[in-house]
């Protein structure tokens, strides 16, 4: 029987940050994740922004943790080798009717304690950003806004946790709690039972379902809100800034923003859906993204699109814990000491920015509940990023290839990802075992050919290193195989076609 001090359900950014924070202490820790890799849900498909904190309603948990979280990112990114840039961000008011909206955000920001806010008049903003819609009326600049690699933001803390003793199990889905009387003592999964003193529910879109299994917060539900995006070819269209529109009630609106990889993305739109797995793009959604983005940058041309995607926000219906505030979409973070359960739910935007502060908050909840957390003497906060061939100078490349020739072979021609990098990821502390796992770690297959050239080579490398038949290699686990059979083994084809 495997027994842990803590089990975390969900390897998204929230689970990852909590895992890393807990791994500072002398505790045993298991993270379970239902998907084939870490960061497969909400954490993987978003705008990758570290929000400054002027948007959430003052007094909410969202506002508090956003502003706190934002400040933690420099140290965090440095220690964990996460690509992060404090680019600053803009809110662009278009037309006279949006002037009030910009001023309102400024006020909120000041109230939330956000530093570095600045109002820019029409002429100032147009001089700075000449590609903007000429109808711009007023803009807010927040110097503390930033962008991050959302995948590394999840992978790096989890890897760091693993290096500090945590255990992680993929393709392991939570089915139910195991109780001893009224106390949770473990979880049932598709891979068997695991026991623990505490369970931390960081199940993202499914966090409501998980807590309902413990019969708590039965009124709490997550309603996924889909957001769709276009990504642009950086060779053809690239802006260097992070631009928000003035938000509406439903969402922060359709942005035009850069990413740490230098690709411009536009989106997201926002519509409520029922299916927690429906990450499909819709024609209407994509059209609204395009139209929304053109409101800020009229020259955007879909000819330069390189990919599309959709993400689901885990929108909850939790009332703000602050009784003076009438707000129904706050974060739900609480500890139920008698039950042995911690819930972190409804973490929609700015969840990524808030995530390190959420982890600190959870640690404090545990400490307040008298959970013994003794600091490890040998905790290593550093996780080094792995080498990226494309980021090196020619001299560095030469040396790298001399030391390890597999870094000399380019597998992904568009993004210049080498065999060496792929092998390193397959054998990393949290191994990449699928095509998408490699893609998100190395950025292979994200360029102009979208994997058309690298796919056969990547399948070959994965099958060789993992000792699997090429027909067993998948895009993202489950039934997402690439190859059905050998060309000449026609008996494996569907019978009636013969």
């Amino acid at each position, binding site marked *: 029987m495997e027994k842990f001090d803590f089990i975390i359900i969900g390897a998204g950014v929230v689970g990852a940050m909590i895992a890393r924070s807990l791994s500072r202490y002398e505790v045993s820790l298991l993270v379970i994740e239902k998907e084939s890799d870490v960061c497969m849900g909400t954490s993987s498909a978003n705008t990758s922004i570290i929000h400054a904190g002027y948007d959430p309603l003052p007094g909410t948990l969202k506002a508090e943790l956003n502003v706190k979280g934002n400040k933690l990112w420099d140290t965090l990114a440095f220690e964990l080798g996460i690509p992060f840039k404090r680019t600053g961000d803009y809110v662009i008011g278009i037309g006279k009717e949006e002037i009030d909206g910009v001023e309102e955000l400024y006020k909120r920001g000041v109230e939330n304690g956000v530093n570095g806010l600045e109002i820019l008049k029409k002429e100032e903003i147009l001089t700075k950003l000449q590609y903007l819609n000429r109808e711009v009326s007023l803009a807010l600049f927040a110097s503390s806004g930033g962008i991050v690699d959302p995948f590394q933001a999840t992978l790096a803390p989890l890897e760091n946790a693993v290096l500090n003793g945590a255990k992680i199990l993929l393709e392991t889905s939570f089915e139910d709690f195991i109780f001893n009387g009224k106390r949770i003592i473990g979880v049932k999964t598709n891979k068997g039972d695991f026991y623990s003193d505490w369970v931390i529910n960081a199940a993202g879109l499914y966090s409501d379902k998980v807590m309902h299994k413990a019969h708590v917060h039965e009124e709490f539900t997550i309603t996924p809100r889909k957001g769709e995006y276009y990504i642009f070819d950086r060779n053809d269209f690239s802006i260097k800034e992070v631009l928000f529109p003035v938000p509406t009630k439903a969402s922060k609106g359709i942005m035009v923003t850069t990413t740490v990889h230098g690709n411009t993305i536009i989106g997201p739109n926002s519509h409520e859906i029922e299916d927690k797995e429906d990450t499909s793009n819709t024609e209407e959604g994509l059209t609204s993204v395009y139209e929304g983005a053109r409101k800020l940058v009229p020259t955007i041309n879909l000819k330069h699109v390189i990919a599309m995607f959709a993400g689901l926000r885990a929108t909850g219906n939790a009332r703000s814990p602050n009784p003076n505030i009438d707000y129904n979409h706050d974060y739900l973070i609480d500890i139920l000491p008698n039950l042995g359960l911690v819930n972190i739910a409804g973490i929609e935007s700015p969840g990524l920015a808030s995530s390190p502060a959420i982890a600190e908050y959870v640690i404090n909840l545990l400490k307040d509940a008298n959970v013994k957390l003794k600091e490890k003497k040998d905790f290593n906060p550093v996780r080094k990023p792995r080498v990226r061939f494309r980021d090196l100078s020619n001299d560095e490349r030469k040396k790298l*290839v001399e030391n390890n020739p597999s870094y000399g*072979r380019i597998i992904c021609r568009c993004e210049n990802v080498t065999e060496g990098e792929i092998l390193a990821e397959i054998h990393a502390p949290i191994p990449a075992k699928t095509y998408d796992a490699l893609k998100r770690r190395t950025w292979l297959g994200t360029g102009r050919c979208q994997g*058309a050239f690298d796919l056969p080579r990547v399948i070959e490398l994965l099958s060789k290193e993992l000792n699997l038949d090429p*027909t067993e290699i*998948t895009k993202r686990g489950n039934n997402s195989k690439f190859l059905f059979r050998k060309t000449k083994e026609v008996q494996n084809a569907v019978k009636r076609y013969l």
Partner: protein
Amino acid sequence: MQLKDIYDVVVIGSGPGGLASAIQAKKEGAESVLVIERDKEPGGILNQCIHNGFGVEIFKEDMPGPKYAEMFIKEAESLGVEFMLDSMVLEITPQKKVYVTSKWYGFNEIQARAVVFAMGARERTRAQIRTPGFRPSGVYTAGTAQRLVNIEGFMPGNRFVILGSGDIGMIMARRLTLEGAKVERVLEIMPFLTGLTRNYVQCLQDFNIPLQLKHTVKRILGKNRVEAVEIVEVDENFKPVKGSEEIITADTLLLSVGLVPEIELARSVGVAIDPTILGPYVDEEMQTSIPGIFAAGNVVHIFDLVDWVTEAGFIAGKGASRYALKEKTEKVLIPIKSGNNIHHVVPQFIKKDALEKAPIKLMMRVSKPIEEKVWIELRNENNLIFRKLERYVRPGEMVVLTIPQKTYDEVFKSNTLYVSVEKFGG
């Protein structure tokens, strides 16, 4: 192989354009010629094009792709062309320093006297046609599927829908059928076939594979692996016709939605690019806007026959050798502009005295099909210089106009040349 520090001619890519360039450069006197190839063996995409139809124009022999490639590889080797395989060029400077990385040769800096770009083309992807729906596995470009089936030896699906009636799409429809898969449908958004008619006959008609013109994929279904595609008819403006939606069960969607010249290297070195075809501007020697940098094959524009890629390679190789050996040429260029119903023309420039040496072949694509006799005309500001009768013109089939040497005087005094499709009898 011991790499030299300096080569007369460095050819990037060993497909038909690259091989022909290297061979011709050697024959014209270049002493050292290096071909750099990303794949493990030379030949480029020909190695996966196991169908026949190659060589009929130039060699009067109908060969499968690998055989056609091998003929040139052998000739290149016998002439002393050096091959650097499984190696990739990362960067070229305008001074023709070539940075190339390889598992076998390490990271190298090679100086070239002349360079030939022969990187070919890449396939347009789902993103470029912006097909909504899920992003499962099972959506492949036709060329990737061709490589998997013909070289790697794996079938990427059992039930296919193919989007696009280009040649690769139709050829794959036949190939997959022969290997026991079912091709449910070939869809074409245009009101006409975009590949060669002969491929329609021998790849689709022969195997009763239905082709639907004016149709496209509206949505891809299936979260992890393709489960079905929703197709729809489109009107003249390519807008979906309401009520014409149909869901086809399939596990794979192949995209054959066009090729784009692979010009990242060309662009990074600063070669001027023709925005209509996204390949470098070239003159009649296939020289780009940077002297000493030449381009051959699909990297310039998409040819429909490999034979013509080979011919373009011969021309580029000759030019590269001439440049490397420091022979002088005329500097004044005459632009060739696309007129009535001409989508684009290659070369886009000719040197003023070019016709002195040989006739010049212009390759064109039309924008719209005309199924009756038409004139293909070459004019300058004042006069009709030369024209040729065609029995029909189709966007899927390149039009060739060879400017004869007897028009030298008229061409020489032109400031601009124009090519156009004109009514027969007009």
